[in-house]
């Protein structure tokens, strides 16, 4: 578990309800309202996607929604910026290969 429990400026981590997310098929817990990227880093996940040509791993880079390095497939939608998208209970999060694939609706 990688979380800052006692922050020098913000103080102790407040208590919030936990939600369930599913990451690459595995159920995991996340703090309600936190960004997907924060939840994944807390679980120790090392990379969020692999690049389309050289299949290199990528994770969080700018952390403010600009660089699109941290995109994943979320609830079947590819290219979701995980650093600015809050977790929701039951959210299905998948490591993305290249540009990902669209979930078939039928």
């Amino acid at each position: 578990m990688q979380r800052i429990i006692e922050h020098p400026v913000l103080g102790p981590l407040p208590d919030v309800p936990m939600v369930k997310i599913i990451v690459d098929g595995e159920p995991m817990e996340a703090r309600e309202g936190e960004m997907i990227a924060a939840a994944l880093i807390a679980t120790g996940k090392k990379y969020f996607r692999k690049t389309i040509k050289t299949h290199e791993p990528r994770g969080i880079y700018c952390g403010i929604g600009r660089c699109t390095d941290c995109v994943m497939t979320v609830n079947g939608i590819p290219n979701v910026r995980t650093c600015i998208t809050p977790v929701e209970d039951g959210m299905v999060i998948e490591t993305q290969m290249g540009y990902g694939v669209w979930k078939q609706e039928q």
Partner: protein
Amino acid sequence: MVQSYDVLVIGGGIIGLSCGYYLTKQGKRVVVLESGGFADGASGACDDMILFQSKKPGINLELAFESLELYKSLVGELEDSLGFANYGGMVLIENERELEVMEEFVMQQRSYGLDVEILTKAAMRKKQPFLHERFIASTYSSMDSQAYPFAVMHRFARKGRQMGMQVVHKSPVVGIQKDGAGDFLVTTAQNMQYRAPHVVNAAGAWAGKVADLIGLNVPMEPRRGQIIITEKIPAIGETNLWSAKYLVTKLKPGIQIDSTEEEKRLGLAFALTRTEGDSYLIGSTREFVGYDKRTTMEGIRAIINQAVSFIPVLKDVNFIRAIAGLRPATPDGKMVLGEHAGVPGFFTAAGHEGDGISLAPITGKLLADMVCEGRSDARLEELSPNRFASNAKEVC
């Protein structure tokens, strides 16, 4: 100082560069005079289609076949892939009225040798699983292709330069005269002068203004087309897509198939193509707004709303840029290609409207044949600028 050439080409878009390239290839000394910079006009703000299904059965469709063959040989000749791809295309049909119109189109196009068919709803959805449910059928042609206009223009210019062609940017033409020896003397805004026995007017939406400089009438109206570009996304379906409305507004403006006021005002119709860079180009509008080539919030919003109504998964996709270009539109929807009877040596190659990318190679090649060999193909008669000549002024 006056520089002398064999041919002066006015306009450095995809048509002017194609003309310049094929003329240079035939041994002519050519200068291409461009008023702006590289890809500044409609050729730099369009989509990338070599679309057959949108061509009127007749000369436009025939020339499109020949242009496709030229594109295939240009890939080797210009030493570049040119973003040439062949994904095929489908025209989406929303109701029985559209189906009727499209069935007639398809019959006509098949009689001209186009490989095109009507797909059932099930066959359509197999190729395009993300379409909205409301579409009842579609056409499909495996021939619809595409090329990347920037690559085509850049490689025409590069190969042309290797053979001696010159391309001069930021050189708007402000005067065209004929001197005593029968040569044309073209003056640019920088007061540079160029002399040659032949002039090719390939100025796109500005072709009428250029022709006017020597007293000729080429009726040409700028028609603004807005397009949005998406981020890189996974492929949506197997082919590029158009709405039946796109074809009907293009080919049979008289026929009304249920359109909203906004669609009519903007000339809105759906076109979606996947680019070499995995973005999508989504269009487009067809607006008569003079020479204003700005994008508008109204246009962008209408294109996005339409796109999401066609393909609902697009609601989660970002668009990264919007572009607008002025398509050169003629009153009869046919391009202008040929020598002006009133002013021998003066040619116009313009007015392709939405077909510029498709028809650029064949336009350049036919134009070069006309200039170099005085060859005038009888079937090109209907494209001649002389069809508008009744209003031409006398030139002395």
